[in-house]
C-alpha cells in the first residue's frame, strides 16, 4: 500500500527502528575501561602538546610523536594480538573527542590509522597483518593512504598510476605520482591504489584499480617537500612519487582488480569519528568562550547578558549535542554484530559535523571579537583547522550526492513497480495516488509508532517525535514524486539531490537526538532536562527547514529557483566573469 511504502526511502533507519531506539549503550566495564584511557590522554594533550608551536613551525615535534606512540594512540583499532589497543568504534570515537583538541595531531593519527592501515585491517590476509600490523601499532612505522593524484581528487576512479606485472609474475612495477598525501614524508608503509590489467570474467582485458601495500624500503619511493597549508599545518602533506617500485604479489590487498571495493570500505569506515571529534572541539570552545563572555563587560553589562551572544552559545550547544548523538549512534550501530552497512549514516554524520564545526568555530571567534582574530588566541587556529573538515575524507558535495543517490537507488528498487503502473496509465493506482495527495493536502495524521502509548520515544519528547514522523512521511511522498518525474536521470539533477540529502541528514540528526534524549530521561542522567530543551530546539528548527526544502522540491513551487540558478550560472560561466553592467554606467 502506498502509505506503508511512502517512508521507505529512509534507508536503514525506519525498518530497523530497533537499531535506533533505544540509543546504543556500552556496559559498565567498557565504560570504566575507556575512562581509564581518557585520563592520561587528556593530560597529555593539555600539558605536552603545544598546538601553537606546532602551527607556527608546521611540524609536530618528535617528543610529541613519541608521547603519542607510548600512549598507544597509533594502534587504537588494531587488535590486541598485533600489539594495538583493540578498541571498538565507540571507544575510538570517545578518544577522538580528546585528540581533536589539536587538529594537526588528529589528522596525522587519522591518516595513519583511519585510512592508512585500515586497508590491511579490513581486507588484508593474515600474513600481511602479522607482517605489518605490529610495527604500525607501536608507531615504529607510520602509514599513509595514497589515492589522490593531480588529475583525480574526487574522481578517484580516473587515477593514472600503473602497476605492471613483471615477467616472472612475482611482483608488480609501480609507476606514478600521488599528491596531497598526509604523512607522506613520515610514512614507511603506503596503501597505494594503481591501475592494473585485470582479466574480466568474459576474458576481456580491462584496467582495474588494485590496492597495494608499498614499503618505502622497496625503493623508488620519493616524496616532495611538505606543502604549506592554511590549517592543520603540523600535518605533513606532500607529493609521493613511485618510480619502478617493485611490489611483491603478496602485498596486494584483496584481489587484483578489487581496489575499488577496498577503497570504498576504507573511506566509509572512518567517517563517523569526525562527529565526535568536532563535538569535542566545540565543547572545549564553549568552555573557553563562556569564560570570556561571563567576565567581559561592555555598556555595564556582561557579554553573556546580551541576547545575540546567548544565541551563539545555544547554537554551539545544540550542534555539539546533535553531533555527539549522531556519532555515537552510528558507532553503536556499527559495533553491533550483524548490522548492515552503515556507510550512508557515517556520511551523514560527516557532512553535518563538518559544516556544524565550521559555523560554530566562526561564531565562537565572533563572540571574542577582535581578540578572536589575534594569533595569541587559539580561535583563528581552530577556524583554519576546521576548514579542511569540509574538504577531506570526501568533499561535502560528493557525500551529499552519495547519500541522496544511495537512498534513491534503494527507494527506486521498491517503488519501481508502482511507478511503472502509474506511467502505464493504470487508473486504479492513479486514483489511489490522487486520493492520497488530496488527503495529504487536507492534513493527514501520521503515525509511525514512534510516539504514543507503545512508542519508543519518551512522552516529554512527544512533540519532537510527531514532527519527525510528519517529516518522514512527507519526505517519502516527495521522493516518490521525484522518482516519478525524473526516473534514473535524477543522477544529473544535483540541485534536487542536494535538497534530498539535506532533508535526510536533518532527519537522521533528529532521530539521533530524540533517541539519546529519550534514553537520558529514562535512566535519569544528570541535566536530562537540558537535553530535552536542546532536542526540542533542534527538532523544531529542522522541522521547518525540512518543510521548506520539501516545498522547494515540488516542480512548479514558487520557492524552487533551480531554473533561475542554472540560467544565471550558465551566463556567468559562459563569459567566465561577472556580466552585469557597472552601476555607474550610462547609456546616453
Amino acid at each position, binding site marked *: 500500500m502506498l502509505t506503508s511504502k511512502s517512508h521507505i526511502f529512509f534507508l536503514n533507519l525506519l525498518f530497523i527502528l530497533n537499531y535506533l531506539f533505544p540509543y546504543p549503550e556500552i556496559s559498565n566495564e567498557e565504560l570504566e575501561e575507556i575512562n581509564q584511557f581518557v585520563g592520561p590522554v587528556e593530560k597529555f594533550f593539555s600539558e605536552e602538546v603545544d598546538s601553537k608551536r606546532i602551527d607556527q613551525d608546521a611540524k609536530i615535534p618528535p617528543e610529541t610523536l613519541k608521547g603519542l606512540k607510548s600512549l598507544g594512540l597509533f594502534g587504537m583499532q588494531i587488535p590486541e594480538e598485533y600489539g594495538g589497543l583493540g578498541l571498538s568504534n565507540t571507544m575510538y570515537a570517545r578518544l577522538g573527542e580528546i585528540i581533536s583538541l589539536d587538529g594537526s595531531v588528529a589528522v596525522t593519527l587519522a591518516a595513519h590509522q583511519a585510512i592508512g592501515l585500515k586497508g590491511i585491517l579490513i581486507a588484508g590476509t593474515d600474513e600481511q597483518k602479522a607482517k605489518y600490523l605490529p610495527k604500525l601499532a607501536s608507531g615504529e612505522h607510520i602509514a599513509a593512504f595514497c589515492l589522490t593524484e593531480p588529475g583525480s581528487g574526487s574522481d578517484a576512479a580516473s587515477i593514472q598510476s600503473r602497476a605492471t606485472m613483471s615477467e616472472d609474475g612475482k611482483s608488480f612495477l609501480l609507476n606514478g605520482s600521488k599528491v596531497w598525501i598526509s604523512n607522506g614524508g613520515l610514512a614507511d608503509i603506503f596503501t597505494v591504489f594503481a591501475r592494473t590489467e585485470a582479466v574480466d570474467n568474459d576474458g576481456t582485458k580491462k584496467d582495474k584499480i588494485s590496492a597495494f601495500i608499498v614499503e618505502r624500503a622497496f625503493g623508488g619511493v620519493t616524496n616532495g617537500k611538505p606543502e604549506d597549508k592554511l590549517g592543520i599545518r603540523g600535518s605533513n602533506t606532500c607529493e609521493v612519487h613511485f618510480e619502478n617500485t617493485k611490489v611483491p604479489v603478496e602485498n596486494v590487498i584483496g584481489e587484483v582488480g578489487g581496489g575499488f571495493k577496498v577503497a570504498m570500505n576504507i573511506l566509509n569506515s572512518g567517517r563517523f569519528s569526525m562527529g565526535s571529534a568536532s563535538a569535542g572541539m566545540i565543547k572545549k570552545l564553549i568552555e573557553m568562550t563562556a569564560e570570556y563572555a*561571563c*567576565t567581559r563587560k561592555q*555598556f555595564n553589562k556582561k557579554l553573556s547578558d546580551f541576547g545575540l551572544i546567548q544565541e551563539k552559545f545555544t547554537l554551539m550547544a545544540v550542534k555539539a549535542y546533535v553531533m555527539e548523538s549522531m556519532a555515537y549512534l552510528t558507532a553503536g550501530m556499527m559495533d553491533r554484530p550483524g548490522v548492515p552497512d552503515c556507510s550512508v549514516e557515517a556520511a551523514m554524520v560527516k557532512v553535518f559535523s563538518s559544516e556544524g564545526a565550521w559555523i560554530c568555530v566562526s561564531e565562537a571567534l565572533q563572540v571574542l571579537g577582535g581578540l578572536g582574530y589575534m594569533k595569541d588566541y587559539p580561535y583563528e587556529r581552530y577556524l583554519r583547522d576546521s576548514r579542511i573538515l569540509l574538504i577531506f575524507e570526501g568533499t561535502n558535495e560528493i557525500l551529499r550526492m552519495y547519500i541522496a543517490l544511495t537512498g534513491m537507488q534503494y527507494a527506486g528498487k521498491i517503488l519501481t513497480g508502482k511507478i511503472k503502473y502509474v506511467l502505464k496509465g493504470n487508473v486504479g493506482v492513479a486514483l489511489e495516488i490522487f486520493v492520497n495527495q488530496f488527503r495529504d493536502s487536507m492534513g493527514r495524521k501520521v503515525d509511525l509508532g514512534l510516539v504514543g502509548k507503545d512508542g519508543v520515544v519518551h512522552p516529554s519528547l512527544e512533540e519532537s517525535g510527531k514532527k519527525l514522523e510528519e517529516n518522514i512521511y512527507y519526505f517519502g511522498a516527495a521522493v516518490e514524486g521525484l522518482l516519478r518525474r525524473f526516473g534514473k536521470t535524477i543522477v544529473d539533477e544535483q540541485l534536487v539531490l542536494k535538497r534530498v540529502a539535506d532533508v535526510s541528514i536533518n532527519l537522521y540528526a533528529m532521530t539521533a537526538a530524540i533517541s539519546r534524549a529519550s534514553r537520558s530521561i529514562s*535512566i*535519569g*542522567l*544528570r*541535566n*536530562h532536562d537540558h537535553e530535552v530543551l536542546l532536542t526540542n530546539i533542534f527538532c523544531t528548527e529542522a522541522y521547518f527547514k525540512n518543510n521548506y526544502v520539501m516545498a522547494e522540491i515540488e516542480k512548479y513551487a514558487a520557492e524552487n529557483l533551480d531554473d533561475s540558478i542554472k540560467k544565471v550560472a550558465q551566463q556567468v560561466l559562459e563569459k567566465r566573469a561577472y556580466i552585469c553592467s557597472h552601476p555607474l554606467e550610462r547609456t546616453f
Partner: protein
Amino acid sequence: MNCVRKLLLARELSAGRGILRQAAPGRDLPWLQGSSCAQRFWPVSVRSIRSSAALSRSELIPSARGDKEKDRGSRDGSLVPFDELFERAHEGDRTKAAFSRAVELFCQRDIRRRGHVEFIKAALRKMPEFGVERELDVYNKILDVFPKEVFVPRNFIQRMFNHYPRQQECGIHVLEQMENYGIMPDKQTKFLLLQIFGKKSHPVRKYQRLMYWFPRFKHVNPYPIPAALPRDPVDLARISLQRIAADLSAKITVYQMSLTDVSDAGKEITQPHIVGIQSPDQQELLAHHNPARPVFVEGPFPLWLKKTCVYYYVLRGEPLPPEEKEETIDSERNFFYPLHLDLDLDRGPWDDEEFYVDEVEEGPIFAMCMAGAGDQATLAKWILGLQQTNPILSQTPVVFHLKPGPQELQAASDSESGEEEIPQSWHAKQEL
C-alpha cells in the same frame, strides 16, 4: 532451619494452642505473632502433610528438641538474639572485617542456618555500629546467609500463598535498609535474590522497584554535595561559600588561618580562621556605594550540608529609597546604537512579564565570610582584610548586627554566671 521447628510445632498444634506457647517460651517466634494465626498455620500444615512421612521418624524429634535445648542454653534466653555473636567478633575493633567474620561464623556454625531470619535482622541493626551500612558487598554477604533455593515456590499453591512470608519480609528488610542508605544494588544482589526467593517474590519485586527508581533519582539534585565533606574547616568554608555564592567568578580569600600560639608571656592566644568570598560584581556594587550610608555585618546564618552545620556572615547594605536611585540616561553612552529611545510608549501589558509578587526588594550584598569565632573582633579583622580590595570600606561606617552564635549560646547555657557579651555585641556601633 525453620522447617524442622515448624514441624515440631505443627505436631503440637494438634494438642492445642496452649502447648504451642509452652513449647517456645524464651524465643520470639515472630511468625506466630502475625496477624492471623490461622493463616500462618496453612503453609505449615501443607508442608507437614507433604513431608510428614519422611519426618515421622522419632529420632528427629528428640534431636530437634535437643538442638533447641542446646541453642537455648547457649543464649541464656536473651531477648535480643545474636548480639553476643557480634560482641565476640569485633574484639574491640568495629570494622568491616570483624563484621564479615561474625557473618561467616554464623554461616559456618550450622549447615541449615537455623535462626537466620533473626540473625539477619540483628546484623542489619548492628551495621551502623560497625560502620558498614554503606557497603554493598556487606549487604550481599548478608543476603548470602539465606539458604538458597529453599524458599522458591515450587507449585501454584505455594505461589498463591505468600511462600515463606517471614523470610520474604526479612529479604525486604535488607533491601529497605539498602534503600534508606541510598545504595544501588548490583548484579550480584539480583542473582542472589533470584536464587533465594525466585522470580516473582516480594524481595525481587522490591529489587525491581529499586532499580527503576534509583537511577532516576541519582542525579535529581541540581546542586549535589560531595559524599565526603572535608574535615579541615578552611576547606569546608571554601566549599560552602562557593555553594552560597553560586558565581564562578567569585574569589575566595583566606584572611587568616586558625592557629593557637603561646606568646612570650605564656598566655595562649588563639586565632580563628577567616575565609571570605567576593565576586567582581559585588566589588563593583561596593565601589558605587555611598560612603555616608552604613553597611551592616549580619550573622551568623546557618547552612546545613548533610549533617554538618556551618555558619556564615554577610556584609550588606540597605536598599536605596526610590528617591535616591540614580537613573542617568546618557545618550552618548553607546557609539553605535541608541541605548534609549525617546518615545512616550511603555511596555505593553501583554508583554510585561516582570511582576513577581514574592520578590522583595533587597539591598546589595557585598561579601560573605565564614569564621571560626563569631565575635566582633574577628569580623573586624575580616573587614580590614576586605579593605585591601575595597578601599571605600575605610570611609564607610560598619554596623555589626550579630546574633549569638552556637558557641556563645552553648557557653551561656553551660555557665550560670551571666555572660555579658551577648547584650554587648548586640547593636554595637563602631566607627572604623
